[in-house]
């Protein structure tokens, strides 16, 4: 027989084996399917969220290459109109934008006011799309004419001629639907288009536009503009600008990315476990083939061919399941995004080539890799050794110290990379990945250690058998335990991170919300400011013992947004500040001299500390401010800075006030009663007690992390199913062994107990090992990744809840996995089992 004629025969042998052990094949398949599905689902949901954001942000960008804008998006329209009558001007278009709320709707909508006559070079479909629907005269002259995309109209449930009550910064305005645009280029769900005049009216900002879109094809055009650029305005390259200014909070996105990576890890482990087990359990067959003269490389090829078939089927099914799961997830993500940021479409799910490639790479690549390692080992081993289970276990055990050592080193390396190596979020994730890998390598040694400890406990014979089995079957159980451990640890890590953040935010809020009452104009969240009379008279209101005044302003610093808050801060407000750099009294005396207090994220991002200087754009050009202190702040990931209000007024000539913090000896409710007559005169004032703001803020926090929770549970569920199937496969493989035990006189009860004990012990062990790993992961997520991403430092708090939930889940999964094999081994007649093979 020529060597090359063997493979078909071998393949048949392999397939026959699979057919005779359908359970094993099916369970390995489940591992692959679950792994692929969860990764694909999370990936699709993430991509849908990002795509919906990108669509919303970029579809209106059109052909613009640059943008003339100011730090606060208030460009005097005369800048544009002057350029427009100058013969040398490049293609340009004025744009007025704003965030709208719509009565009765959640989320924000984007108002975009355009001059159709200037749009030709930028969004060439738009004029036709609008004008096909509405007479030009109406579009220009009707002060309420608006056009919606089809999806926006569907979301709002409105049709042509319907009216929509919108609010900009709390001020109401009525728009009417004059056109519904069917073209896909303006499909964004959150888009309300109007003529530029109407947009100015909605914003209540005559004389100002938000920015000027520019199409600059050469340096001469840029030079032309720069020569004529008034102070306070800048030309921004749009490609560089996209992300930082609009919408989707980076923390939310990081969240999704982290969950995607964890899903990938869990998926990889599941596949690895399922496949490597299916190879390991066939060492006997492989050994026999080798003994019959099959060459090592042929065995290797056989195993890989089989794995390939299994991988193909599993990946295909995984993709189907992943898309289905992804749709559900996408809806949840879209709902969260809609509530927190802007109207996102849940229908943006796209199975593109990249996502398919990822799924195939994971499913097939993971399967082949997982098969290759044990198969290579089996192929390289002398046939007789391969035939012996004991030899395998011996070898595995002999390798344990080396495995544990390299695992330990990886953990160390991971921690070093995460905390000591610069490289931002990426090195944080690399460190995290290494940590997990290291922990997985250590797991078999942990199993061994546990065996030794448990072995010393007094217990029945069955108990001893169960405990010893842990050690005897290390080759199979090791990977399963590692897979379960990684899945559980991921869940612990994320839960602990979220919990830490939640506590930190909650503590910070309670410190920061020191006043008894907060007063703001209605629509304050969207930028409305208080009536001048209210701001001026508030200090004389009855029962008010102290008052702080705030005015927010968005500035562009170092290419990103930040918020400047001009404030008079009363002494009790000041006590709510927690300085991470700079002494308390020095910080306040500096602040009173007109220096800046900057938030931790801003300081982190710009590498600032007390005593440094920060240049802010002002109407009279950039001004350097000294930094008096850095305070802990979770209010904004973009960064905030406080400036004494009189100093601010002197520079910005702006004496508006957005909100007030009132202190009283009477407490919040007493003060509210005392202020009743005042409030009745000013019905548009929003008065909130500190507790109300606290509750609302925490709700926002919880909403942001709701998707994290969902994803955490999903990956846990998948891990659960995967591990369940893996453990079940392990136990089913040992049917014969159990049959022997039965034949030797063990009762059914004893056999079931043995199996359940063994399984439960494994689960418990995985759960216990998952706890330190999970905590370490949370530590990296909190102190390395969050800090690097947002500049948030927070006390790292481990709450017991998730920890023990994890252990319980581990045991539960393992016990469940034991039930069927236990039942089967206990109740089936052992005789046929013994005759097998």
């Amino acid at each position, binding site marked *: 027989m020529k060597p090359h004629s063997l493979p078909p025969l071998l393949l048949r042998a392999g397939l026959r084996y699979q057919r005779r052990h359908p359970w094993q094949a099916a369970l390995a398949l489940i591992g692959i399917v679950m792994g692929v599905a969860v990764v694909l689902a999370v990936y699709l949901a993430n991509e849908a969220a990002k795509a919906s954001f990108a669509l919303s942000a970029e579809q209106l960008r059109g052909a613009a290459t640059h943008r003339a804008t100011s730090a606060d998006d208030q460009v005097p329209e005369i800048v544009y109109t002057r350029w427009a009558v100058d013969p040398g001007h490049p293609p340009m278009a004025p744009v007025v934008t704003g965030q709208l709320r719509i009565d009765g709707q959640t989320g924000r909508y984007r108002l975009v006011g355009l001059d159709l006559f200037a749009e030709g070079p930028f969004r060439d479909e738009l004029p036709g799309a609008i004008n096909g629907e509405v*007479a*030009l005269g109406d579009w*220009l002259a009707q002060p309420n004419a608006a056009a919606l995309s089809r999806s926006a109209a569907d979301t709002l449930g409105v049709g042509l001629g319907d009216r929509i009550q919108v609010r900009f910064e709390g001020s109401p305005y009525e728009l009417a639907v004059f056109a519904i645009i069917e073209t896909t280029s303006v499909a964004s769900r959150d888009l309300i288009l109007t003529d530029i005049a109407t947009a100015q009216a909605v914003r209540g900002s*005559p004389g100002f536009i938000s920015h000027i879109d520019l199409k600059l094809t050469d340096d001469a055009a840029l030079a032309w503009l720069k020569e004529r650029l008034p102070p306070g305005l800048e030309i921004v390259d749009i490609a560089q600008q996209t992300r930082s200014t609009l919408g989707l909070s980076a923390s939310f996105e990081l969240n999704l990315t982290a969950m995607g990576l964890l899903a990938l890890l869990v998926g990889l482990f599941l596949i690895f476990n399922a496949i490597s087990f299916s190879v390991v359990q066939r060492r006997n067959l492989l050994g026999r083939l080798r003994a019959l003269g099959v060459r090592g490389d042929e065995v290797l090829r056989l195993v890989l061919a089989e794995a390939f078939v299994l991988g193909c089927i599993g990946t295909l099914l995984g993709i189907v399941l992943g898309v289905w799961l992804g749709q559900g997830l996408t809806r949840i993500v879209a709902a969260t995004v809609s509530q927190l940021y802007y109207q996102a479409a849940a229908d943006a799910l796209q199975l593109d080539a990249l996502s398919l490639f990822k799924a195939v790479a994971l499913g097939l690549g993971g399967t082949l890799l997982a098969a290759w390692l044990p198969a290579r080992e089996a192929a390289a081993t002398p046939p007789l050794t391969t035939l012996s289970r004991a030899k395998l276990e011996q070898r595995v055990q002999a390798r344990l110290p080396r495995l544990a050592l390299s695992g330990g080193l990886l953990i160390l390396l991971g921690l070093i990379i995460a905390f000591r190596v610069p490289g931002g979020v990426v090195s944080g994730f690399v460190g995290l990945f290494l940590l997990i890998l290291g922990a997985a390598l250590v797991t078999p040694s942990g199993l061994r250690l546990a065996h030794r400890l448990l072995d010393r406990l007094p217990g029945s014979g069955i108990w001893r058998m169960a405990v010893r089995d842990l050690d005897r079957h290390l080759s199979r159980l090791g990977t399963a335990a590692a897979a379960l451990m990684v899945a559980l640890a991921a869940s612990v890590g994320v839960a602990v991170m979220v919990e830490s953040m939640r506590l930190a935010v909650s503590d910070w809020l309670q410190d920061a919300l020191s006043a008894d009452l907060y007063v703001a104009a209605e629509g304050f969240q969207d930028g409305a400011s208080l009536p001048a009379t209210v701001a001026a008279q508030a200090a004389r209101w009855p029962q008010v013992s102290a008052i702080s005044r705030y005015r927010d302003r968005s500035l562009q610093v170092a290419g990103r947004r930040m918020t400047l808050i001009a404030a008079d801060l009363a002494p009790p407000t000041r006590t709510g500040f927690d300085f991470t750099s700079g002494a308390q009294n020095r910080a306040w005396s500096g602040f009173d001299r007109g220096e800046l207090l900057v938030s931790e994220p801003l300081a982190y991002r710009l590498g600032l500390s007390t005593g440094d200087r920060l240049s802010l754009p002002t109407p009279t050009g950039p001004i350097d401010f000294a930094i008096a202190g850095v305070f802990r702040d979770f209010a904004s990931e973009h960064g905030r800075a406080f400036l004494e209000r009189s100093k601010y007024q002197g520079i910005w000539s702006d004496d508006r006030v957005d909100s007030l913090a009132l202190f009283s000896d009477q407490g919040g409710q007493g003060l509210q009663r005392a202020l009743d007559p005042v409030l009745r005169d000013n019905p548009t004032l929003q008065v909130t007690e500190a507790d109300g703001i606290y509750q609302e803020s925490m709700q926002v926090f919880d909403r942001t992390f709701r998707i994290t929770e969902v994803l955490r549970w999903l990956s846990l569920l998948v891990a659960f199913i995967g591990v369940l199937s893996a453990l079940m496969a392990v136990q089913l493989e040992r049917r014969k062994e159990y049959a022997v035990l039965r034949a030797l006189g063990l009762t059914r009860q004893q056999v079931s107990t043995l199996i359940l004990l063994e399984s439960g012990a494994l689960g418990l062990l995985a759960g216990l090992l998952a706890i330190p790993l999970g905590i370490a992961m949370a530590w990296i997520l909190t102190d390395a990744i969050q800090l690097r991403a947002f500049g948030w430092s927070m006390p790292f708090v481990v709450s017991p809840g998730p920890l023990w939930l994890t252990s319980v889940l581990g045991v539960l999964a393992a016990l469940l996995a034991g039930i069927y094999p236990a039942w089967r081994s206990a109740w089936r007649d052992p005789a046929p089992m013994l005759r097998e093979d």
Partner: protein
Amino acid sequence: MRLMLTLVSVLVLIACEATAPPDPGPVGTVRVDQRMGGTADPGFARAITVPEFTFPRDHGPHPEYATEWWYFTGNLHTSTGHRFGYQLTLFRIGLEPGMPVTDSAWRTHQIYMGHLAVSDIGSGRHHSAERFARAAAGLAGAELGPLHVWLGPWSIRGDPVATFPLHLSAQGEGFAIDLRLERGAKPRIDQGEQGLARKGATPGKASYYYSFTRLPTHGEILIGERRFAVSGSSWWDREWASSAMPASQVGWDWFALQLTDGRELMFYRLRDQDGRTQAFSSGVLVSADGAHRKLQAADVRLEATRHWQTDDGIRYPVAWRLAVPDAGLDLHVETAFDDQEMHHSVRYWEGAVGVSGSHNGVGYLELSGYAR
């Protein structure tokens, strides 16, 4: 007379600024309605009675009427004999009558459309451009004291005291004009019945219309990197109306000729669906001393002698025999070169022509309603 905007139910293109390519392609279009054809909003004033023009007031805008234009054409040449024709037209289009709400400086009922063309006769190339803007926020508009009509960077500026000289400045991609138009010796000609030019039998189917038929012109034409110092003479038409054109008319052939003997001849032939000359076709013959007489359809014999066909099959009559027997005129009017088509939101042919036959001269010819 330039009712160009009117018959064609105009699809005004919001095209690419002044840089519109010859073929606007499938860019977005804005339907401006049949501004002068069809029925205008009854809120607009109509040209019904014989006007009493007052100047400089009537050089300025008449927003109570739906449409109006400042329409300049001319034949120019360099000292070395390189010849050019040019056209600069600013149209005011009232979308709705009355004043808009005043919630924003951008709010308006009025838009401006501009057409600019330079016919480089020396090299046989026609350059053209189109612009749009709303008449608000200083982007486009017309005002008096002194006369200033502008659309983005295109402008017509009058002398603060005497309106003349007029300063015309406009740019397309790779070409521009910068011209001074002097008053010259010829008087203003009030067309039709002392400025009321009837286009149909129904009262109100008319426009207010006056012309300056020979304005000595000099200035500069820019083609690519080359600047040409030019001089010659221009023709200025001013017209405003609300839905002046009867529905039965499909187009017209308009001649504005400046003869070397000092006379000018203007004649427009209104065509119906079958290409027949309509009764309200009319014109004017201005003598060298400025006296003028009205021409009726019956006074003029008009015959197309040669057609030029565009690549997509539109046939324009670009050579004519035009005779006014009782004025001793038997003219051969021939385009300076064939392709002087204006292919923008509105498609028509407008170009420089030469005159020979019984008399010599130059002029401008406008052919509308062929591209249907």
